[in-house]
């Protein structure tokens, strides 16, 4: 422990010394955060669970950045964390958070080694947003942003991986503008020298840019076990190949954009007599029409994703609903496992997973029953319509989507489930109407309604499941630096669904009845002081109510939370 402290101190000293001595060749960057929370759980009649829970920690991420020459960049970040209550070194942890180097070879080929954020397309390699994240009032992002930062989740849907990536561009003088080539290879799992082989994930993309109006591309990824790295003769494979097209055309005053992606996937295990290979295809067609800023932009999308389409890089989920919430994980006199709520999803990093998963993981229908694996969700087809509009003075921004989807093949029956989704989010900037009011005055609204239906001759296996989420947010600027932000979000889910139980080869072997009548709401209010764009102090109060009338084994409860959150990036 003491040695590690010395290493950090020496690294920082060295860093500052070199920075001062040689200008910007070596410099420090990072982040700091301090969180303190008081939590109180209340469940009627519960005489066993301790009702109060306090927690807090301070952490500092310190990165050493070095540019030894014009074409090379090195970055290493260490995390020092101290949980409140640990004094004089006890409770302090030191971890290597990330490390990479990148550079340019011959002014043409870019490379990166070590920790890498990477993505391709929504069907090949894509980190889909977690449930409820499409509509989040600003106050709900205070804790969520911390989880995202800790797990390297970014808004551009990249996955954090370890390995190597190379990209370059070839420019042409005739017919074709340029050819962009990206390739990567990541180590997904090390061997244990026994029955578990080394697993790698590799692939790339080549995009031919004919002009600003036309681009065609090819994506290929494969998750595979490397034979010979262990004594196992079995080798998992999941190759996916897709083609993409992007066409932009102006017709009269309308800008038309047509994009498409289609492809095939396979999933099989070599030398495993029990493994049946899965093979399927998908296609995704999207047409977008815009006409200046005065009219809304309209998009129409059609997808068809086969039931056996498997793409580990695109179907891995962020939240693992088979894990348990860390805070008050059991409650009630029967000490049952507390259900995962929207509060846990916002701030419990232990529910999230940072790596790709070989299996289609369990999802929670009450939060998303339609496309829980993103656009690559298998066994879905149908149409979506989207409209986006902003008024000229930015008073109103609206984004509305309607999705009409169904299954491609039935599950346990020939009859198909149908899915209908209404998605609406709006931001109203009232301060634009009040020239004398110099601070933000905003109201936001998010509504999502999902309905799933399946009618079959067997009444006990009918599906009728509806969930609704409404999020109302407000932001009031009190001065240049102070603001009050608040939100009320409620989620209702009601009805009967059947969850899939899959075997090790991703085949459905059973259906589990899922019946719920859940109501949960969260009220959040925060006072925010902004030191600068990257430096905030928030004092947050939240109260969550949860009940599920259809499941008496999980009694109703409420959870209130007071927190102080300071965050800074430098």
């Amino acid at each position, binding site marked *: 422990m003491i040695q590690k402290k010395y290493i950090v101190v020496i690294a920082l000293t060295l860093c500052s010394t070199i920075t001062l001595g040689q200008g910007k060749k070596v410099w420090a960057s990072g982040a700091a955060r301090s969180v303190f929370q008081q939590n109180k759980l209340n469940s009627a009649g519960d005489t066993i669970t301790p009702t109060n829970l306090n927690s807090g920690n301070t952490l500092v991420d310190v990165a050493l950045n070095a540019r030894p020459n014009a074409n090379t960049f090195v970055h290493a970040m260490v995390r020092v964390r101290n949980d409140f209550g640990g004094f004089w070194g006890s409770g302090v942890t030191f971890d290597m958070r990330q490390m990479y180097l990148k550079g340019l070879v011959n002014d043409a080929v870019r490379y990166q080694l070590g920790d890498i954020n990477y993505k391709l397309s929504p069907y090949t390699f894509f980190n889909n947003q977690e449930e409820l994240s499409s509509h989040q009032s600003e106050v709900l992002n205070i804790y969520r942003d911390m989880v995202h930062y800790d797990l390297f989740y970014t808004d551009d849907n990249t996955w954090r991986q370890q390995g190597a990536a190379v990209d370059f561009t070839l420019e042409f003088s005739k017919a074709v503008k340029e050819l962009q080539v990206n390739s990567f290879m990541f180590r997904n799992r090390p061997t244990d020298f026994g029955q578990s082989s080394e697993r790698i994930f590799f692939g790339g993309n080549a995009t031919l840019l004919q002009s600003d109006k036309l681009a065609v591309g090819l994506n290929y990824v494969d998750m595979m076990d490397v034979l010979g790295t262990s004594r196992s003769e079995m080798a998992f494979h999941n190759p996916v190949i897709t083609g993409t097209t992007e066409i932009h055309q102006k017709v009269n005053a309308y800008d038309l954009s047509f994009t498409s992606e289609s492809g095939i996937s396979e999933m099989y295990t070599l030398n495993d007599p029990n493994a049946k290979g899965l093979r*399927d*295809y998908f296609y995704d067609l999207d047409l977008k029409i815009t006409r200046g800023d005065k009219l809304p932009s309209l998009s129409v999308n059609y997808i068809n994703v086969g039931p*056996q389409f498997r793409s580990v890089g695109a179907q891995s989920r962020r939240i693992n609903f088979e894990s348990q919430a860390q805070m008050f994980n059991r409650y009630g006199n029967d000490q049952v496992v507390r259900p995962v709520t929207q509060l846990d999803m916002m701030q419990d990093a232990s529910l999230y997973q940072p790596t790709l998963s070989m299996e289609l993981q369990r999802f929670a229908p009450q939060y998303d029953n339609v496309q829980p694996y993103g656009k690559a969700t298998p066994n879905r087809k149908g149409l979506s319509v989207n409209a986006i509009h902003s008024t000229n003075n930015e008073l109103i921004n609206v984004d509305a989507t309607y999705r009409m989807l169904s299954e491609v093949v039935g599950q*346990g029956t*020939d009859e198909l489930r149908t899915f209908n989704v209404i998605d609406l989010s709006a931001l109203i900037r009232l301060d634009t109407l009040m020239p004398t009011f110099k601070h933000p005055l905003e109201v936001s609204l998010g509504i999502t309604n999902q309905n799933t239906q399946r009618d079959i001759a*067997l009444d006990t296996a009918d599906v009728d499941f509806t969930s609704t989420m409404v999020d109302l947010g407000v932001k009031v600027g009190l001065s240049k630096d102070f603001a009050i932000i608040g939100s009320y979000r409620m989620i209702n889910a009601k009805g009967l669904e059947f969850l899939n139980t899959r075997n090790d080869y991703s085949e*459905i072997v059973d259906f589990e009845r899922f019946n719920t009548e859940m109501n949960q709401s969260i009220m959040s209010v925060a006072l925010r002081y902004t030191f600068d764009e990257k430096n905030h102090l928030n004092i947050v109060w939240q109260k969550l109510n949860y009940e599920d009338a259809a499941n008496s084994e999980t009694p109703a409860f409420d959870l209130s939370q007071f927190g102080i959150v300071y965050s800074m990036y430098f």
Partner: protein
Amino acid sequence: MKMILNKTSIMNRFAAFVVIGTMVFTVGCERVTEPEGPNLTDLYGDFTVLEDFKTSQDDVDFSANETVYFSARFSTITSWTITIKSSTSDATKIIEGRSNLINEENGTWDGSTTIFPSFGTGACTVELWTEADSSKQNANVNVTGLRVPNGTVVADFEAINPDWNIFAQSGANMSFKLASDKTVPQGSRYFDMGGAVNWDWLIGLIDFPAKSVGPNGFGLSSNPNESYFNVALYRPDTITNGVVLFQFKEDENGDGNFNEANEDMYSVELKGLDAGWQIVSIKYSDMVALENGQPTAPKGNGLHNPDKLEMISCLFLANPSSGYSQALMDYMIFTTDGPLKL
């Protein structure tokens, strides 16, 4: 202008060709169109018992390699549990399944035990519980002979073998000894490993050299896929900090000794055991070399050579700051026809 038109026209044709081409290529692939998963009618239709629960025979002699199976048939798939209880002890065997048919494939009892002690001879009651209607049906079976596991017994812990090397730290409440005050999976005694050592992870260890088993050593074949290492372990309800580490040391050069610098040592590290007795089984070829608990490359020829196994060491460990720890051990045996069933 004409030039531009021609270029645009070529571009549009190329774009159409690309889009249609990729679509045709994609959709040209075959797709399975049958419904996924089991038929919902088989799962959630009306439940009735089509064939009553019964046994294949009234008496069974497991020592003569006989088995008994139970049968029943239902109109829908349901979860079911068969519980066999000895009338003379607490020995219990539980067989669980989910199907609409119970038969020789999924309802056979080979004389093994789920909850120890092992079964003795005598009458047993058998109960079938079905989830769909929560009903129970009963039957009886009489055990006339006990099953005898095939394999090489390394230690049954009925007595201390003088060839074993036993070391225990001088900690608090140490109990590295034979004991007999608890139910045991086999025989009447077990080995009690317990104590509190606040300066070291190691609480104690036992070495089982090849010569302690017999003149032919462990007598294993050269095929690592044939040999299974089995041991019965017990974790007390309130103790969760124990780690049982087995080391398998091979004498690859045949000099009668294991050299850790250039010969293979494979390990099995057991944490988080269930409370109570349980049988732990691992195929010899599945064992890995460990260094500080992490897989590493073996230091010898890298091949699993069970026929060259020179010594098994059992180390009982616990975090020195975690206080008292304890685990019980019984019936260590190599089997060749699969994991041990007692």
